[in-house]
């Protein structure tokens, strides 16, 4: 068993970055995730593993620092919250286009605009539908516990390097701020410069003797070549959709109704299941762990089984619900419930919505 600690989600994320063997973190403070950079600065990872931590002048600079250092084959990460993540969209598009691996954590707060500093899940569209310009995707992982804030960091780095693509960990102010027991994984070694050079021949860390120089760019002025590059990216995304979907189900075997919820909402939905079953309502939960690629097959499985209806429970005005409807295509009822603006729905409210929107309606 690994070391057990009581930690905030943000702290677990930061500790996991050090333990995952990250080479650098670049970030800019924003509530409710400033503990990430505060923890890293206090921990002196330069002494622990040689990891670089730098407070950038803006989120725009942070994401471009990821482009630069990630482009040399190093393991790099940043974190921010909604308005800061909006500022990073240009950079994420360039990173996806130039195929640079990196990890970006979004501890979502209420929006739109400056919004507030309370938990929300209203950045779903931005995370899974692109966010920046052009045809690209992020792999998006949604932790629903402090444990997963830790565990998903090494997983994200593995996926980022496997596919040379940016990976987003999307949580919210609740997961980021709450304290839970977390079992920390063993320290992974940082790669040496020589190992990086050997492992990532695409990386721009100095032209190898006797070989061609490497160029990292998202520009191609020849439309036919750029079209080909787009097809290459799409082929990669199809492979990710095929191989990397993660989800979890709870009490779905005998369920007549299914809630679909991720992150904090999935935790709340667990309590709703208990309350519902006490009243004899057979309800289950599908928890998407990867929001992109989306667990379409899991949803389809229960459509085939004749489920009476799905309720998308999310702290937004109804974003993920659209992805459920894309799978269901009208074959059964799909409704949405969620509080927004930083208000967190209670398990009782979710149960009431389930009754009104699916069972009674």
């Amino acid at each position, binding site marked *: 068993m690994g070391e057990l600690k009581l930690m905030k989600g943000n702290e677990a994320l930061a500790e996991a970055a050090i333990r995952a063997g990250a080479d650098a973190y670049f970030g800019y403070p924003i509530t409710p995730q400033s503990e990430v950079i505060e923890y890293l600065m206090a921990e002196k990872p330069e002494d622990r593993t040689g990891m670089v931590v730098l407070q950038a002048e803006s989120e725009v600079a942070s994401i471009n620092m990821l482009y630069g250092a990630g*482009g040399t084959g190093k393991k790099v990460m940043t974190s921010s919250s909604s308005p800061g993540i909006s500022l990073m969209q240009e950079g994420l598009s360039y990173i996806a286009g130039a195929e640079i691996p990196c990890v970006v954590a979004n501890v979502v707060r209420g929006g739109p605009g400056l919004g507030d500093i309370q938990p929300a899940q209203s950045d779903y569209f931005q995370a899974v539908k692109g966010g920046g310009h052009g045809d690209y995707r992020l792999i998006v992982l949604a932790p629903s516990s402090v444990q997963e804030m830790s565990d998903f960091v090494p997983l994200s780095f593995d996926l980022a390097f496997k596919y040379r693509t940016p990976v987003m960990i999307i949580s919210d102010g609740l997961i980021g701020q709450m304290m839970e027991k977390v079992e920390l994984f063993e320290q992974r070694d940082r790669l040496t410069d020589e190992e990086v050079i050997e492992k990532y021949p695409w990386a721009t860390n100095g032209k190898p003797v006797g070989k061609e120089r490497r160029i990292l760019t998202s520009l191609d002025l020849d439309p036919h070549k750029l079209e080909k590059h787009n097809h290459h990216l799409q082929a990669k995304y199809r492979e990710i959709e095929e191989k990397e979907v993660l989800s979890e189900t709870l009490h779905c075997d005998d369920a007549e109704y299914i809630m679909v919820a991720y992150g904090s909402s999935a935790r709340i939905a667990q309590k709703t299941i208990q309350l519902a079953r006490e009243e004899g309502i057979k309800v289950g939960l599908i928890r998407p762990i990867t929001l992109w690629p989306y667990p379409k097959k899991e949803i389809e499985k229960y459509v085939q089984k004749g489920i009476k209806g799905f309720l998308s429970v999310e702290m937004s005005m109804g974003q993920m619900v659209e992805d459920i409807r894309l799978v269901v295509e009208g074959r059964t009822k799909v409704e949405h419930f969620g509080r927004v603006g930083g208000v967190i729905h209670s398990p009782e409210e979710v149960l009431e919505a389930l009754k009104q929107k699916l069972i009674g309606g």
Partner: protein
Amino acid sequence: MSGLTVQDIVKPENLVYKKTDLMTDKTLSYCPGCGHGTAHRLIMEVIEELGKEHETIGVAPVGCSVLAYEFMNVDMQEAAHGRAPAVATAIKRVWPGRVVFTYQGDGDLAAIGTAETIHACNRGEKIVIVFINNGIYGMTGGQMAPTTLPGMKTSTSPYGREVIAMGNPLKITELVAQLPGTYFVTRQAVHTASAVRKAKKALMKAFQNQIDEKPGLSFIEIVSNCNSGWKMTPVDANIWMEENMFPFYQLGDIKKDGQLIEKK
């Protein structure tokens, strides 16, 4: 000399000058008479002479020199518009032993990327920034730049830059020289043989500073021409540059070895 044939001239022992191998054979995309090609060559010659071909990473901007990576035969990254100093900062932080430089135009460095420029300078990142200032947006077709001179006509100041409405030209090089993080700040040109020699010397000093781990950033502005954007012949553009750009953007060192140079 009269006895020399072509066969004699091309013998290796008679070679007096050759293009550096660190410039690719690709035809430059720049307009005839433009200073970019010369600036590219000088940087590559300096890197070759310093023996850093295999340890250099360059960062290209958005602007006319967006394709700099097509011509510079070292590992290169293409940055988003204005973000090259942030990109270069991170490369240098994770590969402190490598030589890292950015190559940026006036719109990239002094307008959209002002924050990244100032903060990389102020942190004293141990990188080289090469700043090409031709007072205009060349690639997008001749629009006003942050460095466009008062009264100068561009496609977005068609009656001349009116400073009351459009603001003043920004002397960002003098500005960054004031920051404690800059170690060497100079303004050069590449339009004559003697200017080229001086510019190369300045570039050599800048890269040597980085290799010697001098405490701070080396910043080299090259005041250049844009005959297409200025709508002049290459010769007239150079004359106009000497008569109009140089009095405003005065050539010479502004800061050396971390010390501001006193104006006489």
